[in-house]
Every structure is written in C-alpha cells, then in structure tokens.
C-alpha cells in the first residue's frame, strides 16, 4: 500500500501556527498527541462518517481514537444528529432553559445506578471540578486523594506542581497514592484524619505511557468501605470509560456505587454536554455551589444525549463494543506475533491500550504506529484507544491486514530485534 502524504495538512498547520498557539493545542495536536514523527501524521481534518475520518489531503482513516472518546455510535449517527437538528429548529441557547434538560436528567437518573440527580456542563473537567467543590462543600474538608498517573482534566487543581502556570498553592491539598493500593489509602486517611474531603479516581488505571491496570479483586469494595467509614466522598471520573463498560456507570460495572460520578465524552456522541451525577445526600451541597456557564443548559446537546442514550440502551451497546474490542485486540496480537513482536494489550477491550515490549522503550511501537497512520489506521502510541459501534467486521479485517503489513515493515527496518 502506498503510504499517505500530508501536503495540505502541513499547509493548514503552518497557517494555524501563525494564529493559534501551538497550531493545534492539547491532546488533538502533535505535541501532546505524540505525533512521532510529525510528518507521518495528519494534522487537520476535513470530514468524518461512521468509523472513518478524512484529513484535508483526502486520506481516509479507520479511527480508533474516536475524537478521544466522544464518537461511540459512529460519526454523524442519523438518530442522534437527527434529534439534534430537530431541536436546533426549535431552540438551543435560551434565557429559559428547555425542558429537554429535565428529560435528559431523568434519563440519566433512570440509567446510571448511582445517580439520583444530574448536573450538566460542557467538558469532563467541568464535572470533576464540580465534584471536588461539591465534596468540599459537603464535608467542609479540603484535602483530595488522587491515584498516581491520574488525569482529571486541565483545571489547576488537576495538574501537577511542575506544570507551567500551576502554583504550589493550587495543588497544596492534593494527596497521592498508588493504584490498587488500599493499604496506602488507609495510611493516608490515618495521616490526615478528618481532613480528606474526597477520593477521586477513574474506574481503572488508564494513564498514559503505561500498561493500563484493572482493579484488583475487592479493591473497589474496600475503597468504598473506607470512604463510608471515614466520611470521604467517593468520586468516580467516568469521563473516559463512561458508557463503554456499562450504561449503568463503570462503578456498577465493577460492583460498587460512587457518591459522585462524572460523565462527558460518550453522553451525546460528540455533541457537547457533560454531566455530574450523584447520590441524594450530595444534592444539597451541589445546590449550594456557585457554578455555571453560558452554554451549559443548551438544548441541542440535551436532545442529542437523549437520542444517544436511548439508542445505546436499545443496542445494549457496551456488550457489542466489548466484542468488537476483543476481535481487534486478539487480531492485533496475532499479527504482531506473526512478525516476531511482543504486543502487550491492556485495559478493557473497548478501550484497549497497546505497547510493543521488544525494545524496552517505545521506539518500535512508535515506528509501527507511524506506519499504521500512513496506511489509514488511526492509532496512537501513548493513550488508550476507543471502539465505536460503526466499526464493522470488514473494518477490523482491514485493520488487521494493515497491522500485519506494518509489523512486517518495522521488523524489516530493525534487524537488531528481528534479524
């Protein structure tokens, strides 16, 4: 297969660099997105449909990043987009919020096990910040326990003390423990008796640059028990996993109930809405917060969310995504082994993480990812991937065929490891 070229991407990116900091900033850009080497990657897109996206050069990609999660049914899903378009004719951003807000909140409460109420915003970080503020308002305590390797957004409190623009004071009340370590949690509770407002964590460890780790048996039940015993609010950041493991919430998937649970990416299949859901006893504290935004109660994303959740329920989507993810992961492992690669697959199948273990670094894996990109499969070297409903068996077969070719190319280029 002839490798893709990205001439128009480069032209557009050079224009962007003049008027946008970093050209494309954040996780979708070449720096944080780990485009290695940058000339092998598309930089700007033109359109998307189903499981595919196209760049400005017209190159088509089977997209395993799904806009880093929001695309769960497939880009431009007719049912979700139809509902959004219908709502757009009626009203969107208005002085009196649409009743669609109530309908979506009722649907969230009916769907998510630990939800007695839903509070809407725009991005995942809006909801993690709301959750922490709510926990502090409820407990009148200041400290928050994080799990090492965490990512809960980009607000200063979620960043680390060495990040540009972050003050030591911003993170002065952050405490850190390792993943899957309940003893460390017990110790930190003892060391900070009566001072911890909340424990915040993703349902499993899906940090970047490392193999993803599932919860050990009994881990979440012990964390739940300790939080309850010590009056600590248990916050689950389900922004990334939400609706891909279970429509009832990833806490339900792992057999426990959170006090507060944050959703965003997959609520509305790409329409911009996030939600913090919580238990009844947390509602008063949430009511007390001064926390809102200009577009948080817009009706179009609410209509899209209602259509999306309704469709996901009808499809029993998490099971389908899991099946597709298993097919992809097993196929990739076989293609890797066929070419002498030790491909480590970790995390849940619908959000699988990949690492090549042959070289003890990421050079080989980055080479393979770059070859995949140039042949139309959008994967990444540092982050978990995402499965969407529109991904067909034919797409998976093509992915595996390309993967086999790319493993072969990298093996040939690295006789040191595959000679």
């Amino acid at each position, binding site marked *: 297969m002839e490798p893709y070229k990205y001439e128009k991407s480069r032209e557009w*990116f*050079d224009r962007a*660099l003049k008027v946008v*900091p*970093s*050209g*494309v*900033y954040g996780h979708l*850009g*070449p*720096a944080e997105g*780990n485009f*290695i*080497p*940058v*000339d092998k990657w598309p*930089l700007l897109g033109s359109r998307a449909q189903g499981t595919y996206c196209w760049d400005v050069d017209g190159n088509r990609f089977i997209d395993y990043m799904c806009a880093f999660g929001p695309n769960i049914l497939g880009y431009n899903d007719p049912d979700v987009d139809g509902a959004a378009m219908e709502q757009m004719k009626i009203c969107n951003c208005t002085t009196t919020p649409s009743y669609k807000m109530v309908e979506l909140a009722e649907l969230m409460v009916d769907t998510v096990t630990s939800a007695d109420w839903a509070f809407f915003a725009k991005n995942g970080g809006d909801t993690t910040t709301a959750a922490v503020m709510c926990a502090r308002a409820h407990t009148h305590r200041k400290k928050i326990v994080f799990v090492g390797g965490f990512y809960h957004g980009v607000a200063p409190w979620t960043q*680390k*003390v*060495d*990040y*540009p623009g972050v003050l*030591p004071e911003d993170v002065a009340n952050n405490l850190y423990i390792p993943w899957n370590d309940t003893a460390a949690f017990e110790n930190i509770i003892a060391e900070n008796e009566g001072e911890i407002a909340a424990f915040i964590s993703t349902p499993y460890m899906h940090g*970047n*640059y*490392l193999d993803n780790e599932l919860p050990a048996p009994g881990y979440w039940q012990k964390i739940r028990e300790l939080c309850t015993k010590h009056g600590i609010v248990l916050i689950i950041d389900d922004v990334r996993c939400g609706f891909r493991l279970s429509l009832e919430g990833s806490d339900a998937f792992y057999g426990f109930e959170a006090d507060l649970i944050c959703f965003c990416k997959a609520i509305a299949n790409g329409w911009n809405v996030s939600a913090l859901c919580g238990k009844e006893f947390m509602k008063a504290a949430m009511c007390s917060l001064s926390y809102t935004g200009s577009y948080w109660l817009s009706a179009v994303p609410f209509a899209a969310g209602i259509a999306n959740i309704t469709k996901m329920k009808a499809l029993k989507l998490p099971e389908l995504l899991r099946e597709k993810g298993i097919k992809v992961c097993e196929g990739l492992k076989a293609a890797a082994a066929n070419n002498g690669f030790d491909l480590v697959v970790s995390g849940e199948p619908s959000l699988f993480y990949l690492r090549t273990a042959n070289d*003890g*670094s*990421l*050079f080989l894996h*980055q080479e393979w990812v770059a070859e995949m990109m140039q042949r139309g499969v959008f994967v990444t*070297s*540092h982050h978990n991937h995402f499965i969407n409903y529109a991904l067909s068996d034919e797409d998976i077969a093509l992915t595996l065929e390309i993967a086999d070719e790319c493993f072969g190319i990298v093996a040939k280029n690295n006789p040191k490891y595959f000679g």
Partner: protein
Amino acid sequence: MLDQKTLAYINMYAILGTLENLCELDPEARALMTNPKPIALAFDVKGGPKATITFAGGRVRVRPGIHKCDIKIPVGSCEKFNAVINGTATPVPVKGFRYISFLLKDFDALTKLLERYLRASEEDLADPVFFERSTTLMLYVIAVSLSQIGDYDEIGRFSAGYIPDGEVAFSIKNGPAATIHAKDHVLSTEKRYPENPRAIMEFESLELARALFDGKVNALACIGNGSIAMSGMINMIDNLNRILDRVALYLA
C-alpha cells in the same frame, strides 16, 4: 522561586563545569592558561557543592569532591558562592596564596570569556564560529542544569520523580549532544550522545536550538513544525521539559 542550593550546584557544575568545553572549543581560552604546571582549585561550599577544578596543559577538568589541590576556597554558604559566581563577592582562599595571580589573572580571564559566550551579544553571535561555540556551550550548560535542578530543586525533584530509569539523548542534529541519566529518579548528565537512549529529544539545527534557548520560539510549536523531534519514552522527555522550564528561571 530560586533555591540557592540548586543555583550553587548549577553554578559549580553547569557554569564552571563548562570551562572544560570552553577550552576544548576555543584556542583563545587555552592560551589564557599561562600556568606552566597543573594547578588544582577546590571550592568547598558549606551546605552545597564541593568540587576540584584542575587546569593543566590547556585543559580543564571539574571533579566532584575536594581532592589534592593547590588553592582551596571555602565558602560559607550557597548564597555566598552564588555571589562569587555573579561577581558581587570576592573569594578568599585559605590555601595557595602563591597562586593568587592565577586566580586573579588566568581564572578570571577564563570565566570572563565563558560569560561572553553564555551571555552573548548580537554582535558576537553574527560571527558563525562564535555562534556555534556559544550555542554548543549553552547546550552543555542547560543539559547539566537539568540534572542539578532535577536533583535539588523541590519542584524539579517532583518532575524527576516521574522519570523512569534510562538515558535520554538531548542533542542538536549533526552537532553537540548530552546524555541525561535517570536512575531511581536521580539525574546526572554526561556531555556525549548516549549509547542506548530510551528517549530522544533532538533540535534540527544550531539556529533552532539557539532560538529556543533565547526564548524566541516555543518548544511545543517546534514539535508541531518538526524542528524538534522527540521519540521513545515520551514520559521521560515530558518530565524533562518541565525541568527545562525551570532552567530558564535559574539561568536568567
């Protein structure tokens, strides 16, 4: 906020340590050393770095620790040592008064020449040979400062705490290079390209490196346009970049 102890280590190993490279790169520097016999100068900083600098045959060598020396300069604190380096305090040796002329003449001239390269004027940089030497020396100063900040600065140590073991190549394409070693979250620097890097951060040219060192371009934008290439264990580079952000603070 600057930590005086960290700054003292930077001054000892990144600034005075670069005298080694100055004498390798510039014949004028070698000519400044008129001492017919080797001279060893030891700085003993209370609560800070201790190192012995040997001047012999036109070469300079900086070794950690107090070794056999001809001149010994005890300094009461990191703050005082930093004042000596920035020229606002005068060092007083307790040993080696007969070498005082070396201190006042040769050593002083060498450090002034180094300062000319490290705080280069636009006029000097217009000379391609000076430009290359200055940028090379800057790369070494920055590479050594990275490990000092990662080892001593409170926030730098936080960043180093996230760096896995291994060697990072910090280099200019077809030009000078350094290795940042990480072992159990302690950093050290060698002024050579690593044999087995786990991560690579490479500037495409001396000009690009210079612009970056002078704060005229942004590293993230350079990654986007391909003028800075990174690969391998990006979490090593990511955390080194956070320390790099503090290098500018210390070297300002």
